């Protein structure tokens, strides 16, 4: 279990006064304190951790966000920025003495500018909401996390989220032009703009993926793209994970960069097939879903080449979709992977390490061995093109020992990722989940320097404290007794 810092006694003691102050800033229904209405905010996508906050505030404008932050700063109150709360690393987990700053009411699409291929949206607009708004005109916003129906663009900035198509289109950081944000002191500022690569320090890049540690984002200017003429998927199943890994290498070496290149291992194939009946081959040890884009002829040409490459690796099955419906069928199992695993085991931890792709066979073998050692099942889905691994560790939440084992298993997987030259998190963020593993990847000095940079934005450690950086040795955050 993860230690959270001790609540500040003075804040708890002044609860009524603080709530009254917040209420004065957000008249109406903007401050939530009744336990039943606070409940949904007690946790996020990492639901093993729960903590009711002091209160939840739901501002509607940047100015209200600024007023709240100014007030909290003056009163030494901790603040947890929150989008949709789909974080899988506990990034939006509250603290007992903190105010949860929910961004969902900042949900307006302010502007779409096709001539300049950008959209200006408030932080609480959902990821899919942007694409849905512009799809009728043939445009889309590229990063597409599987949670895109719910997760918000502010949360995507917080986690620098990726998706199945980031091999071609990049992650959130590569698709932003500008941000409007507010410091903990309540100062509104803008970085970037409607143009590329503003001269000066890349604050936009630093803020992206900073997990709510540096500032609260209220508005985001995103790049939008015209959709390709079409896209189509194929499925290739192999007798071994090494063989599938070699096929991935051969694809990259051929000069083709597919828009998506997803890898599933046997337990994952079985879980998805049982759930989605997508027609996945159950005798395969590993399966790839490969998607290409372009005109009909271009798709034919690329899929033909990919088929030829895969056929060199003695595939069990090769299925090229001929129609959009067949593509959807191929994707159906993969898209439902989390739900599918959820059917086998109601509780699972979704890990998110990244490894150099060449290490895949070794890492999968080690994960298999650990699964036996820990006595816990694991299913692997994997963005194969970029080495981002998502082992789903199944456990029983009613059994505390099972949860502790699952956490230890997950930690071992992430240590393995670092050991082979990778990192602790590819797209889900450190949050509380991986916080205490940070010393595995960073030296004490590197961690101190990052903490000092966090403090350059937030000297009193009020913004989403207790996440990302180990709290041990941080004078601003005493561990709870």
């Amino acid at each position, binding site marked *: 279990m993860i230690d959270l810092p001790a609540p500040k006694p003075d804040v708890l003691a002044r609860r009524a006064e603080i709530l009254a102050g917040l209420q004065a800033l957000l008249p109406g229904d903007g401050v939530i304190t009744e336990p039943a209405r606070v409940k949904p905010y007690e946790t996020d996508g990492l639901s093993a951790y729960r903590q009711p906050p002091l209160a939840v505030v739901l501002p509607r404008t940047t100015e209200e966000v600024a007023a709240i932050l100014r007030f909290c700063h003056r009163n030494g109150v901790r603040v947890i920025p929150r989008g949709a709360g789909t974080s899988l690393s506990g990034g939006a987990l509250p603290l007992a003495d903190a105010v949860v700053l929910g961004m969902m009411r900042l949900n307006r699409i302010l502007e779409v*500018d096709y*001539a*300049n*291929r950008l959209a200006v949206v408030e932080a609480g607009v959902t990821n899919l909401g942007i694409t849905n708004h512009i799809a009728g005109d043939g*445009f889309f916003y590229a990063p597409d996390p599987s949670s895109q129906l719910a997760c918000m663009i502010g949360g995507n900035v917080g986690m620098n989220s990726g998706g199945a198509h980031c091999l071609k289109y990049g992650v959130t*950081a*590569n698709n932003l032009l500008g941000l409007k944000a507010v*410091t903990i002191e309540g100062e509104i*500022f*803008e970085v970037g*703009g*409607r*143009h*590329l*690569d*503003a*001269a*000066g*320090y*890349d*604050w*936009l*890049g*630093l803020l*992206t*993926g900073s997990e709510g540690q540096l500032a609260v984002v209220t508005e985001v200017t995103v790049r939008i793209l*015209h959709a*390709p*003429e079409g896209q189509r998927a194929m499925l290739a199943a192999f007798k071994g994970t090494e063989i599938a890994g070699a096929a991935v*290498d051969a694809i*990259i070496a051929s*000069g083709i960069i597919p828009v998506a290149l997803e890898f599933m291992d046997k337990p994952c194939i079985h879980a998805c097939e049982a759930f989605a009946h997508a027609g996945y081959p159950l005798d395969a040890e590993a399966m790839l879903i490969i998607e290409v884009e*372009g*005109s009909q*002829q*271009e798709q034919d*040409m690329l899929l033909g080449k990919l088929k030829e490459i895969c056929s060199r690796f003695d595939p069990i099955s090769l299925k090229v979709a001929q129609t959009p419906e067949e593509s959807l069928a191929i994707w159906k199992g993969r898209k439902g992977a989390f739900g599918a695993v959820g059917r086998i085991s109601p509780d699972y931890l979704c890990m998110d390490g990244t*490894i*150099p792709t*060449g290490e895949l066979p070794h890492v999968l073998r080690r994960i298999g061995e650990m699964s036996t050692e820990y006595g816990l099942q694991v299913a692997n889905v994997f963005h194969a093109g*970029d*080495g*981002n691994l998502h082992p789903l560790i199944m456990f029983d939440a009613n059994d505390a020992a099972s949860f502790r084992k699952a956490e230890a298993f997950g930690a071992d997987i992430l240590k393995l990722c670092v050991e082979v*030259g990778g*990192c602790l*998190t*590819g*797209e889900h963020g*450190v949050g509380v989940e*991986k916080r205490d593993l940070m010393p595995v990847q*960073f030296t004490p*000095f*590197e961690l101190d*320097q*990052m903490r*000092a*940079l*966090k403090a*350059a*934005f937030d000297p009193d450690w009020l913004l989403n404290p207790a996440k990302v950086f180990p709290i041990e040795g941080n004078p601003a955050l005493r561990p709870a007794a």
Partner: protein
Amino acid sequence: MSGASDARNGEGRGGLNQPRMPQGMLIAPAEEAGVAAAVAEAAAAGEPLAIEGRGTKRALLRPVQAARTLSLRNLSGITLYRPQELILSARAGTPLPEIEAALAEHGQQVIAEPPDLTGLFGATEPATIGGLVATNLSGPRRISAGAMRDHVMGIRAVNGLGEVFRSGGRVLKNVTGLDLCKLLTGAHGTLGVITEVTLKVLPATEAEGTVSVAVPDLETGVQALSAGLGSPYGVSGAALLPGPTPRALLRIEEFAEFVAYRCGRLREALGRFGEASLVEGEESRALWRRVRDAEALDAAPEEAIWRVSVQPSAGPGVAVAAGLDKALLDWGGGLVWLAGPATEAAHGRVMAAARAAGGSFTLFRAPEPLRAAVPVLPEEAPALAEIGRRVRAVMDPKGILNPGRMRAA
């Protein structure tokens, strides 16, 4: 200290844009430890350090007053290259041509298409990878494939106290901790001395082709570029060449069959803006080199050069508002290269035009007195300026790394 160290005669070579020789002591370590030691020593002595890649250029942003120069030229060489993983690491002083040659052997390339500005500056040495990252310079492909900063996957660097640190790593996806790769990229050596860089690379495409549209004016040209960029064809270059009849250029880089098809579709779609022709193969490549390296700007040696970034539709207006008729537009119209008299008046007009368009500017090339007298980059808003001071206090508490390079102290 492990690096070579010698004193050079600080005689300037004169000339308007001519680089001057470094003043005083030149330190050029061959190992990271030597870089760290040199910085630590300078920090202890409170002596500013001018940081440079390969020596011959000094006409960059604001002049740095430093008795010591730390050169990365000897810290050179590719340290890791995994074509299948699309990853290459090199020490900071590695010349770009060496990296490009290694990649070419595997049919790969540096994604951001960084410009070769040796011509523009009359430099005699190639750019280093550390210098390119420190300046975040990207070429035409920026619009489709991202900037230099988008492909820096990992970095090793030395802070202003001589302490070595890493950020990122050698994998394509990584959100572990704060992204100091981005912070250092484009910081012009003021937050840390980069010692090693890991880049994401991509396969070079099989072929390229360019649709060239003869347009009546810049406004129409940007509309043509916008139409091309708003199409499904994956345009990877969109520039506007100046001249009596400006030409809007749209590039496709793809498999050969795709290039033919997509260029054909673009020609049909863009015919309404002017006569559209097709440029292929080496001729297309040569055209884009002239855009990438700003040669098409045709700046006279004594003229100053600016690089302005705005939203694409504002590009033509910037050129007009600045009152400069030498303008080359790239990035769909959003990157405006301007050339004109190296005067404070001209600079004032460029600054005002960039500001009015909500964009950003860099005084890219000018004689030292002008660069010392005017802001070479936009001022930061007060909240950011304050954060910038605090961040510098973390990364370089003694203020010795390229002091004054980006903004007057």
